[in-house]
């Protein structure tokens, strides 16, 4: 799954794995890492980054370097500031990554609805991210928390109506 991803040049340069003390240098470094995180997550369809676990993203065995927890947290903080990520927990161990923004996901969903003529029909949340209809589309595997945000947005825009089912899996949405 991850074999297709090409890491950028800086991933092979050791100092990029140390959080730089000089501001202008650090700004450049963090910007490059933020960009890498978004492309990596998009390529691997990763929605949650567990900051403390071993990861192909934060370490490069070929040069024997890896980003420290502090460095990872600092970089993710920047993504959060840009609105491209959110800390799931106060202790900052898990980070939800919006490699597509909520608005972009909403457009993808509405496109799906249009393409498959789903106006007026109803689907459960589960079906929306894992059903046969979405297999092969971008929606497949979408993180439920992201989907929840998308639906909240679309509901506010009057494009869908959500309702609770008896179980979380059965929470559904009607496309208006």
């Amino acid at each position, binding site marked *: 799954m991850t074999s297709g991803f090409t890491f950028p*040049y800086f991933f092979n340069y*050791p*100092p990029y794995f*140390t959080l730089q*003390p*000089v501001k202008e*240098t650090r700004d*450049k470094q963090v910007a490059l890492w933020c960009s890498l995180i978004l492309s990596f997550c998009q390529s691997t369809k990763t929605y949650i980054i567990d900051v403390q676990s071993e990861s192909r993203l934060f370490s490069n065995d070929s040069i*024997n*370097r890896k980003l420290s927890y502090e460095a990872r947290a600092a970089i993710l903080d920047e993504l959060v500031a840009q609105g491209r990520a959110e800390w799931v927990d106060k202790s900052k161990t898990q980070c939800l990554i919006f490699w597509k923004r909520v608005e972009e996901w909403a457009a993808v969903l509405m496109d799906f609805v249009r393409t498959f003529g789903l106006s007026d029909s109803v689907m459960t949340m589960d079906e929306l991210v894992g059903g046969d209809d979405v297999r092969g589309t971008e929606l497949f595997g979408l993180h439920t928390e992201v989907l929840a945000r998308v639906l909240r947005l679309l509901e506010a825009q009057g494009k869908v109506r959500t309702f609770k089912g008896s179980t979380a899996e059965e929470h559904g949405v009607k496309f208006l």
Partner: protein
Amino acid sequence: MRRGPGIAGLQHAARTKEQFKLTGEEVKKNTLQAMHEQLAAFRANLEEFARKHRADIRRDPVFRAQFHTMCANIGVDPLASNKSLWASTLGFGDYYYELGVQVVEACLATRSVNGGIMDLASLLKYVNRRRGSQGEPVSEDDVVRAISKLKVLGGGFDLVTIGGHQYVRSVPGELNLDKNKALEVAQGRGYTSVAEMCTAAGWPKSRAEDVLQALTREGIAWVDDGAPDGLRLYWFPCLGGGLDQAA
């Protein structure tokens, strides 16, 4: 002329000498005149050459360099003035001006990584990449000429030589001898450490620390605390590896 005896002979000799002198000056004047005329003819021929071969001069960096040498040999600087006949015949004024802009742009774009020191070969690659396949390729010679024009603008543009390699500096502030030494030592592997500087340059620890920290503050060096032995290493992107390979 045979010197005759007596006063008449002396007067004759003096007149002869005078005549020789006059003739000599005449010759000299004529020679200088001839030289001026020849030079003027050279210039005219060169201008005609430039007009005829404008396309080749612009397209081929090797031919262009040879043309510059030819001009230099007869004391002509085709870059001298934007308004000169040269500028309009060759469009050199615009050519080197545009190249100068591209050089500045390359330096600015990479400054946050290399601190304002860029290896000349990398700069050349970067500029040629930006010009694309449609653009006319530029040579190191062209870039060096463009930089010599940029120097006039101030702002620190200059070519510096460190350890036998040429770099373009685009920030003000001299690379003092100590900083130069650090870069020279680091050229081996692209990085150095306080310990290595002490050994290689024979410096006390404080001097090595001062220089490496100064280079870091200026953005020319990046720190690396990930070495297995925990020793802090100082890497220099301008020495290679820190930038996109195309740059």
